[in-house]
């Protein structure tokens, strides 16, 4: 339901600002442009999505994902206790977390989606506490080596583009912790109401 409020608010504010600033022509064409770019973006990620779904399938078939799952089980068992009971969901989440740590955002999304789809089965459109937690984990960044940012810094003339690493790790750790803590507090608060 939050997305409904966000969407309505953004579109209505755009209309008001467009009217006030005389930018309405630009707003109108931006609406169509945005819709078009959404399909373009989807198509451009289609190949990557299919590729990593395929790689995950291979990893499942040859037992690699079980090994990976074993590595992350101690943490994930606490974070997602119900989902971890299903071996295939645990495998997908483990692969998602590994891809995130490696900074392979394009690979992490299809793997995370795979887990989310399994976790959403039989919940009739309502996100469970654990699914919320998985999504919050993925909206926070946990990558160890931010390669893209380093390349942007290098392009801007920076001599040591990786000198920000400790700062990135500290900020990431704080942000993930607060996100998971907020999810936990909010799920408790709402249940009591």
């Amino acid at each position, binding site marked *: 339901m939050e997305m409904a409020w966000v969407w309505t608010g953004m579109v209505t504010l755009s209309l008001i600002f467009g009217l006030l600033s005389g930018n309405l022509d630009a707003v109108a064409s931006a609406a169509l442009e945005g819709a078009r770019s959404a*399909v373009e973006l*989807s198509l451009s990620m289609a190949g990557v999505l299919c590729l990593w779904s395929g790689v995950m399938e291979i990893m499942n078939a040859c037992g690699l994902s079980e090994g990976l799952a074993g590595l992350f089980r101690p943490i994930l068992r606490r974070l997602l206790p119900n989902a971890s009971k299903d071996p295939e969901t645990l495998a997908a989440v483990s692969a998602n977390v590994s891809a995130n740590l490696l900074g392979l955002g394009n690979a992490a999304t299809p793997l995370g989606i795979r887990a989310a789809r399994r976790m959403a089965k039989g919940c009739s*459109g309502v*996100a469970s506490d654990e699914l919320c937690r998985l999504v919050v984990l993925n909206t*926070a960044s946990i990558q160890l080596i931010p390669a893209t940012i380093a390349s942007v810094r290098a392009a801007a003339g920076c001599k040591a583009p990786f000198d920000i690493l400790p700062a990135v790790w500290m*900020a*990431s750790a704080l942000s993930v912790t607060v996100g998971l803590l907020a999810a936990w507090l909010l799920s408790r608060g709402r249940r009591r109401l």
Partner: protein
Amino acid sequence: MNLSSLVIPVLLSAVAVYGLGKRVDVYAALTHGAEEGLTVLLRIVPALVGLLTAVSMFRASGAMEWLSGLFAPALDLLGIPPETAPLLLVRPVSGNGALAVASDLMASHGPDSYIGRVAAVMLGSTETTFYTIAVYFGSAGITKTRHTVPAALAADLTGFAAAALAVRLFFGS
């Protein structure tokens, strides 16, 4: 050669070699998984059309700049440099947009300036929140997202404030 270009080819070949060693038909598994990827894609498109239409209108109307100005004093209180306000607003909705805003900040303030470093750390410690939420819940068929949005935004805000704090801590301001 870039070291990070090593990761993907090595990963692909390692998985294939290992699978073949276990006598798994890796090619059949790959195409079967890819087929599943396509069905997921069909469910992502509607969510992205909704999100990107609104974001694109919002930026074109000038509402984004107005919001940046509005937030600047509040950001100051949190120790976040007000110059980074546009980055904060773009980051949750557009990865490429955020990269563009951050490169702009680095170019105008210098990559090793306080603002330049904060912008880089902000990029590295946050994600494209609304895009992620739209894609995950869209593909899983979830309509009631419950507390996900507030929790994710709390994480983002913490990431931004922590980025400014961490840069001050490690580099001075």
